[in-house]
């Protein structure tokens, strides 16, 4: 089978993203178990004092590197690959994309210096008036703007393709990737405005104070769609690659998959107030409207669940699976890429349930800022997304480097160990949250912990330890693969599942950009506009900065 040849230079460029991503994961994941151990009362930070001053400095490293750096670099690399490979054409302006990439790298380094110097222990939400060193904000800005520049390079490549292929349907992997990038470019305006109009001038001493409520409103304009920026690349793989890998299955519904992506574009930004249900400065009416829209964005995930599982069932039945569940065992569990992504998908069911509970307006009073929240997002970003990316890397890294995956059995076991560790960790965090345990607290040392929490706190530590083993296994597999002397015999075949219905027969409106973009912007103006105008009109820059860590 002849597949489109991505140039060696482009493979190297994509590979650089994956390399930075995995390095960030390596450092960030070191701290994950240390956070979990603190819950169980096993205090390692005492011994780290010369380098890492506190639990919270470690938590900042963990959150920034894992949730922001690992994800963003992996995503930009994977989406760049999808656009090039999907459209079967090289980047229009590789220099532009390189500029974007290096801005992101410089940004990470600029943010890393104050974090490591304990000058930016503000966690990955950096809520003011906690005031970090200015370099932290400059670094974040560079990462975001660099990702914009890379996105522009991909849009330009697409525009050229479109000129030459006027009536073609955009190939799905490229389509999904471009929608994801568009979503990212729109939603990051919130955090860009937050940093450029408030946090950066404030950290440089140009303005005296900030408005913490307005800062949160800006932050969550970006904060929830950020979740979809993480998730949609995994969805692309689940929709269009995993069914092929799992047993030569076809994509059950190409047009509904496209519709789901458009709904994500339209609905994932105008619902940020669902992170601010218990903020004092936002009227309940707007919170309620955003809660209804949040229910709305759950809908395309339900569509995704059906299409993805049906595509997998198609694969399993092709491999001879009989009965209602007989096809599950026939999926290609021997392939670590398949195993990782299937396990990621299973835990995502529970991530979805927790997410819906969080989103349910006043139900959030039970859950807000409890341990339930990190329990929830370790199922979503730290499993559905991260374990899927790990699975993708099990074919993508051999494809990019031409080196054989080292010890596929190890890779497979790694995914199972992650699955087990995360079930133990996340289940106990959810239960602790329902019992009232707060997030962002080293609970092993907290004075108000009742005895009934202790067995769960132990399980948090145990889960963290198991996840640590899995993390080490992953890094070992990646290191040994990247340096493997054994090369693949011929280029790794990129798994792309055909659609059951010829995409050329799907409705034209599924390939029109303008109406969806106008709709997205209009909805943002309607449900964010009035509150933004009101909060900006009543801005009170009365909060000076604090360094209380």
């Amino acid at each position, binding site marked *: 089978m002849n597949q489109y040849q991505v140039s060696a230079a482009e493979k190297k460029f994509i590979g650089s993203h994956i390399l930075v991503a995995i390095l960030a994961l390596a450092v960030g994941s070191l701290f994950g178990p240390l956070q979990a151990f603190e819950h169980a009362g096993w205090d390692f930070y005492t011994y780290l004092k010369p380098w890492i001053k*506190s*639990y*919270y400095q470690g938590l900042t490293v963990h959150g920034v590197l894992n949730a922001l750096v690992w994800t963003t670099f992996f995503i930009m690399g994977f989406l760049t690959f999808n656009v090039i490979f999907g459209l079967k054409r090289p980047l229009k302006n590789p220099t532009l994309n390189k500029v974007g990439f290096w801005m992101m790298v410089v940004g990470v380094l600029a943010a890393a210096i104050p974090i490591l110097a304990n000058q930016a222990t503000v966690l990955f*939400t950096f*809520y003011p*008036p*906690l005031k970090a060193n200015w370099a932290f904000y400059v670094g974040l800005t560079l990462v975001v703007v660099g990702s914009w520049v890379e996105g522009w390079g991909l849009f330009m490549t697409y525009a050229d393709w479109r000129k030459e292929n006027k009536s073609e349907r955009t190939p799905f992997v490229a389509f999904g990737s471009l929608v994801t990038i568009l979503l990212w470019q729109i939603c990051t305006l919130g955090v860009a405005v937050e940093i450029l109009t408030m946090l950066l001038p404030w950290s440089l001493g140009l303005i005296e104070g900030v408005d*913490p*409520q307005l800062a949160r409103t800006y932050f969550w304009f970006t904060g929830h769609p950020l979740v979809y920026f993480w998730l949609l690349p995994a969805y692309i793989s689940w929709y269009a690659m995993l069914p092929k890998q799992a047993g030569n299955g076809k994509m059950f*519904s190409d*047009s*509904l998959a496209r519709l789901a992506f458009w709904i994500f574009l339209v609905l994932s930004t105008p619902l940020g107030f669902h992170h*601010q*249900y*218990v*903020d*004092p*400065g936002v*009227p*309940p009416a707007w919170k*309620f409207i955003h*809660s209804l829209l949040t*229910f*709305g964005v*759950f*809908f395309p995930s*339900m*569509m995704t669940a*059906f299409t993805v599982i*049906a595509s997998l069932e198609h694969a399993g039945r092709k491999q001879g699976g009989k009965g209602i569940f007989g096809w599950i065992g026939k999926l290609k569990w021997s392939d670590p890429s398949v195993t990782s992504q299937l396990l990621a998908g299973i835990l995502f069911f529970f991530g979805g349930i927790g997410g*819906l509970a969080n989103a*349910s*307006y*006043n139900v959030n*009073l*039970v859950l*807000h*800022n*409890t341990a339930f929240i990190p329990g929830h997002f370790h199922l979503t970003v730290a499993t559905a997304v991260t374990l899927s990316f790990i699975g993708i890397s099990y074919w993508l890294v051999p494809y990019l480097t031409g080196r054989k995956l080292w010890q596929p059995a190890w890779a497979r076991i790694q995914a199972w160990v992650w699955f087990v560790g995360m079930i133990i960790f996340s289940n106990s965090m959810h239960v602790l949250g329902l019992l*009232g345990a*707060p*997030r*962002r607290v*080293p609970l092993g*040392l*907290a*004075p*108000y912990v009742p005895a009934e929490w202790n067995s769960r706190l132990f399980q948090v530590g145990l889960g963290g330890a198991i996840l640590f083993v899995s993390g080490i296994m992953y890094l070992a597999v990646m290191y040994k693969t990247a340096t493997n002397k054994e090369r693949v015999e011929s280029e790794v075949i990129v798994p792309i599942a055909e659609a059951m219905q010829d995409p050329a*027969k*799907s*409705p*034209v409106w*599924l390939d029109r950009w303008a109406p969806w973009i106008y709709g997205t912007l209009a909805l943002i103006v309607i449900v964010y506009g009035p509150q933004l105008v009101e909060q900006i009109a*009543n801005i*009170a820059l*009365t*909060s*000076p900065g*604090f360094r*209380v860590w």
Partner: protein
Amino acid sequence: MSAHKMHVDSYERNWMIFSAVLLVVFATAVSVAAFGMGIQVPAPEQRVDPRTVATDPNSPWSNPGLREIAPGKYDAYILARAVPLWEYLPKELTVPAGSSVTFYVTSPDVQHGFKIQDTNANFMVLPGQVSKLTVKFDKAGTYNFICTEFCGAGHGIMYGAITVTP
């Protein structure tokens, strides 16, 4: 180019309809709790200047504590602060069982949280804003209130308690 109709498998169409109905049911249940049972989220109450809110003699938070406004009805003005130490002022409150207490909480420094265990009071505390919710304490006992937002090195020790006497 002809216009194509969207093909949707019948199982999948039914699943989508079912999903939509399910979400409407959840939204209805939430609305009943909010508008029928009065389980509401905080609303904008008042803006304050965080630089003076703890010291201005006209500010209730310069003298935080419990005020009985009617028999069995109380207003509790609480200051959540990280400087000089991570604590609530006052740290302890006592009310008789059956009391209805309206909390007014603000911060003179960084963001905090305020969650009273085993109640629906759980909200953000922001400098410059006043967070308000009401709780009716029917059962005697001790209810810890704890900080749920990162507010610096002492976040994990920041808490207080409400004693409800029989």
